[in-house]
């Protein structure tokens, strides 16, 4: 197909979609803190490799990969709890709380892994269930990604339709109001952070199994990837309801991977340029609303100039006659 020759090969295309689906779990985690709680949570960069490290370690110790993946989620939950504790109980600003936990987790991740990189060669993973059925790694990842994304969307949709879910949403939206209605906002913030980081660790666990290794440095830039997915998704696919937003975020995550894959493959970038590309993509997305406004203003001005140039002297004279300073 032509489109593949210009933009990317079919294999990178499907690879990008699989990756986008797996990474969408991270993006949904970021969505919970960034959008629902209105909390810029940098714990992400620590809880993502934490999930990878825990899953790899447990798989290598002979645990069932599914069990290992769930254990990884539990660790993420704890990371979120600590950030929440620092923020709500010790009153450390949210951004700083996240940075503290993220930094601390770097050492913890190294402790868990025992070294900086833990390969999962020839180990059973959540993907081998599918590849045992004769699927390629990419296809297996795609199926796993779809299942995970759908399950996570459904669970979050259900949760955010409950009394508790309403309270978490209101905590991010208007803490004064929901406190006045009898909700402990500290508790809700903690709950949201735990949920978010459990998902982010889940994403870390899945990506580690997809890539075949856990690396202590794999968390760097994940918050940017998550935010880019959230913002691309919401701008392009809408954000009227929670479930709509979640769906948008998943689409955003896929689209983000496609953009990156296209840039890497056909535009002469190297894999090491990935983080730079991530930042540029996010910067562009974040500035879109402003650019759009400026663009509209320029277009409007041009239209006005056109209108006035059609009958120039008349309008000018008219205003001079009617308005102006009465004293002159």
């Amino acid at each position, binding site marked *: 197909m032509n489109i593949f020759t210009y933009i990317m090969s079919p294999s990178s295309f499907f690879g990008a979609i699989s990756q986008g689906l797996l990474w969408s779990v991270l993006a949904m985690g970021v969505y919970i803190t960034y959008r629902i709680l209105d909390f810029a949570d940098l714990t992400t960069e620590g809880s993502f490799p934490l999930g990878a490290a825990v899953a790899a370690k447990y798989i290598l110790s002979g645990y069932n990969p599914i069990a290992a993946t769930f254990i990884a989620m539990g660790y993420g939950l704890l990371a979120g709890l600590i950030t929440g504790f620092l923020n709500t109980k010790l009153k450390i600003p949210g951004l700083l709380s996240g940075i503290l936990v993220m930094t601390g987790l770097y050492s913890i991740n190294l402790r868990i892994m025992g070294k900086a990189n833990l390969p999962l060669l020839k180990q059973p993973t959540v993907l081998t269930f599918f590849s045992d059925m004769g699927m390629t790694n990419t296809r297996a990842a795609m199926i796993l990604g779809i299942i995970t994304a759908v399950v996570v969307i459904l669970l979050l949709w259900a949760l955010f339709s*409950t*009394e508790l879910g309403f309270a978490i*949403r209101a905590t991010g939206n*208007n803490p004064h109001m929901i406190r*006045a*209605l*009898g909700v*402990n*906002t500290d508790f809700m913030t903690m709950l949201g952070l735990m949920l978010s980081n459990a998902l982010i660790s889940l994403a870390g666990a899945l990506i580690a199994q997809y890539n075949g290794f856990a690396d202590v440095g794999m968390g760097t830039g994940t918050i940017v990837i998550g935010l880019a997915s959230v913002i691309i998704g919401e701008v392009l696919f809408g954000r009227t309801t929670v479930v709509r937003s979640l769906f948008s975020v998943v689409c955003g995550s896929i689209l983000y991977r496609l953009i990156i894959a296209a840039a890497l493959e056909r535009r002469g970038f190297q894999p090491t340029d990935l983080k730079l590309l991530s930042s540029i993509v996010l910067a562009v997305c974040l500035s879109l609303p402003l650019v759009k406004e400026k663009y509209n203003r320029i277009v409007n001005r041009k239209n006005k100039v056109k209108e006035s140039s059609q009958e120039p002297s008349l309008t000018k004279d008219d205003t001079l006659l009617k308005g102006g300073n009465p004293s002159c």
Partner: protein
Amino acid sequence: MLKIENITKTFSPGTANEKRALKGVSLHMKPKDFVTVIGGNGAGKSTLLNAIAGIFSVDSGKIIIDGNDVTKLPEHQRAQYIGRVFQDPRMGTATDMTIEENMSMALRRGKSRTLRKGITKKEKDMFREYLHMLDLGLENRMSAKAGLLSGGQRQALTLLMATMTKPKLLLLDEHTAALDPKTAKKVLELTKKIIEEEQLTALMITHNMKDALKHGNRLMMMHEGNILIDLQEEQKANLQVTDLLKMFEKASGASATNDRMLLV
């Protein structure tokens, strides 16, 4: 219903910005009392209300609502007794959530939040009826986000939310101040109607002396962290704004005309 005993509050104590906002305020409100509170900027009106609501803890004294000592309770635990409407219309609702979602959260004021459904069909029907009473057409826009409402609509909705499950005490913090005069009047009428129909005990701060005289069965004027004047229904019945100003000057020894309170 509300018993306040000698509460004091000093902000930033021991610093250059030290502010003694409440200097030993005591107040007893009987059930169904509707007290209006006036006073200039910095008189301590809002501080008093916030102290009752539990936004901060007081330095000394006691706050008792319906026989329950709430002095040490955090804000969210006092919510079971108190309904509140704020000055800023944006404060009273979660703007990114729908009208019905906002109402469902208000219906659960003071109850613990569980994994039960956030809003049921039955509740929606109930909300529709409530909104119909407001006569603002909101019953047809229940799934619209609260952020789309005008200031007046939001205050009316917040008022409804604050009183839907009957509170022991309704706190109104200049809730009409941010509205245009016409809307303010409407919201005030609605306030009066709800308080009378539900037989609520209410404390209303206002900067409008006429409103303070016209509404409620008791009027208090605060000045520099104290309650300066406390008028019962019969005392305030035939009072004019000018009388009130004279009383203030006599009681405080200050000139009312210099005070920002004069926003009649």
